[in-house]
């Protein structure tokens, strides 16, 4: 294989991104009264102010967690969309700890993040055991769990946490010691970023430098073969779920105490599905998740800006995500080009 065909995945991803931008342009032309201006706001706007760049990173922090979680699951060939529910219930439950306990700041924050991880693992253990022991579809069970956890979280919010003095459907205020410290002045980027980057490193080491990670990846590549060579696929499935659950639970906790003063989610936050696309963009590589998350953050801030400053609904982002997800995961996309490159390489 020569350099050119090794470059192929990069070219393909770039082509997919280009097409998604063209789609964005098309939508804006259809919806907006001032299309060129709106597209400028969408594409260039996020880089025009330090605050907007900060927003991109702030958005990327929670989705790094969910992207990592999905990458681990995808590596083990599992499709579990429970991240959504895990984010929600983890945020709801850690809100108790953030409202009713008083502790020194660092200990309090660490305890909350750990609690999030434990909640995530507890939730994910249900689809994990169902799949590992009884071969039940983790996709369906995790989706049902999402709806159930949303109901439970709303119940907690309305009956136990609801601040009746606040006008909206929000919880009491968190204790000040829970607020994660801001590390980049002029933005709201908190030390949550460091937790996210540390998680990336840990997941990378786990997947590529340990026996457990090897086991997990092997059972993803070919579980029959893994079984015959003595790898327990049961352990691999459970491990992947627990790691993903811990990551997503941590994501929910970090997001709650770094970006919010109260628990105020009344619907599923959407980070879980986002993680799916990020893992695909990153080709399930933990390091790549960082870049993919920043890119998704950029898309979101662009769409937010264009919704705020112009007249295009932010739901445009869903269309872009679909295009990217479809094209990046399409093995046959640009297959002709690849074939030609390989043939040239042979000559």
């Amino acid at each position, binding site marked *: 294989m020569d350099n050119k065909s090794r470059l192929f995945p990069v070219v393909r991803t770039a082509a997919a991104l280009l097409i998604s931008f063209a789609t964005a342009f098309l939508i804006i032309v259809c919806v907006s009264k001032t299309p060129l201006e709106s597209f400028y706001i969408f594409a260039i706007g996020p880089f025009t102010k330090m605050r907007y760049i900060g927003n991109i990173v702030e958005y990327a922090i929670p989705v790094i967690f969910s992207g990592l979680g999905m990458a681990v699951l995808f590596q083990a060939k599992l499709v579990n969309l429970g991240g959504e529910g895990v984010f929600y219930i983890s945020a709801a439950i850690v809100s108790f700890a953030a409202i009713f306990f008083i502790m020194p700041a660092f200990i309090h924050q660490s305890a909350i993040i750990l609690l999030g991880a434990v909640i995530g693992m507890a939730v994910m253990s249900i689809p994990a055991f169902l799949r590992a022991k009884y071969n*039940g579809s983790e996709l369906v069970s995790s989706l*049902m769990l999402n709806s*159930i956890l949303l109901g*439970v979280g709303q119940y907690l919010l309305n009956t136990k946490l609801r601040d009746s003095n606040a006008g909206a459907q929000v919880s009491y205020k968190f204790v000040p010691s829970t607020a994660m410290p801001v590390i980049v002045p002029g933005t709201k980027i908190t030390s949550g970023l460091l937790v996210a980057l540390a998680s990336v490193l840990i997941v990378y080491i786990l997947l590529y430098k340990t026996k457990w990670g090897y086991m997990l990846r092997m059972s993803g590549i070919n579980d029959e073969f893994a079984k015959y060579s003595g790898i327990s696929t049961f352990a691999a499935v459970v491990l992947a779920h627990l790691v993903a659950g811990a990551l997503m639970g941590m994501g929910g906790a970090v997001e709650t105490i770094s970006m919010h003063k109260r628990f105020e989610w009344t619907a599923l936050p959407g980070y879980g599905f986002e993680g799916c696309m990020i893992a695909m963009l990153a080709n399930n590589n933990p390091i790549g998740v960082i870049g993919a998350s920043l890119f998704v953050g950029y898309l979101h801030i662009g769409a937010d800006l264009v919704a705020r400053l112009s007249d295009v609904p932010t739901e445009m982002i*869903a269309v872009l995500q*679909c295009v990217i*997800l479809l094209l990046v995961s399409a093995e046959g996309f640009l297959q002709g080009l690849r074939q030609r490159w390989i043939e040239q390489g042979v000559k």
Partner: protein
Amino acid sequence: MENVLRAIFTTDFFYSIFRVATPILFASMGAVVANTAGVPNVALEGIMLLAAFLGMMFSAISGSAFVGLLAALVGGILCAGVIAFFVLYYKTKMILSCIAINTLISGGTVILLYMFTGDKGTSASVASKVLPNIEIPLIKSIPILGGVISGHNVLTYLAVISVVAVYFFIKRTPVGYHMRAVGLDANAAESVGVNVNRVKVLALLISGFLAAFGGAFMSMGYVNWFSRDMVAGRGWIAVAAEAMGQTTVIGTAIASLLFGAADALSNAVSALGWSSELVRTIPYCATLIGLIMFSIRTSGKAKGRLKTNIARHEKAKAIKLNTLKKS
């Protein structure tokens, strides 16, 4: 508890089971057809949502519920066609392309709704049409049964008919036979001259067609408006029903009715002042519990089969050894 029982044992409750099961029944029949041909369609949720939107929009524009239904069906088939194109010709993974389509439609319908009505939440400001209810002449006058069976939306009856139709389609027609062959072993089917891709595309299109009926029912029968994400997981419940029914038409229909009953139950007890957040999770809990029980049972059966096979093998070996010793 007595209140609950009183809320359940009414004609209204049994009537509402059929009403709420209608979209699930349609979508789960779609899931059965797709899965029979080995292309598990999990974009039913999105297809239903698209159909619900198109039904609302075109019935409002044309003033005719029938045109709305037609648009919904065309939309459902086209959407399934897009999935088929990506999966079979671009080799995208089935589940990922379905997730992508679901995301697209969940956001896309909001954009279209905004363009059409200027509102991002519901279409309440637009006068869209509803498909008619049908009173069955003789059965209507039977005391209790009449109240349960008669007076449903035309699509509810069509849902029941679709179960029978899908059953005969899969069991009795040549195309259905091909679908089962492709689902069992695509290579074997191809080796005897079945056009595998064509059969798979057809199965996907039919599943889109059926799911679109369910979606149309949501905005033109269940209620008379469209609201964002109004399908609310019914497509996924249909997927679960299909998994519990083990891709059999009858089993899937029964599972769909069970989930419909759970849904109706949540509607009935929410009137009693129970916490509405928790009550709303009843159908999902029922689905999850159903899935768990079903998985445990089938995996137990598979293990049992393995054990008997091993035992049989051992026995045969022992007999062989004995005969060898004797000789």
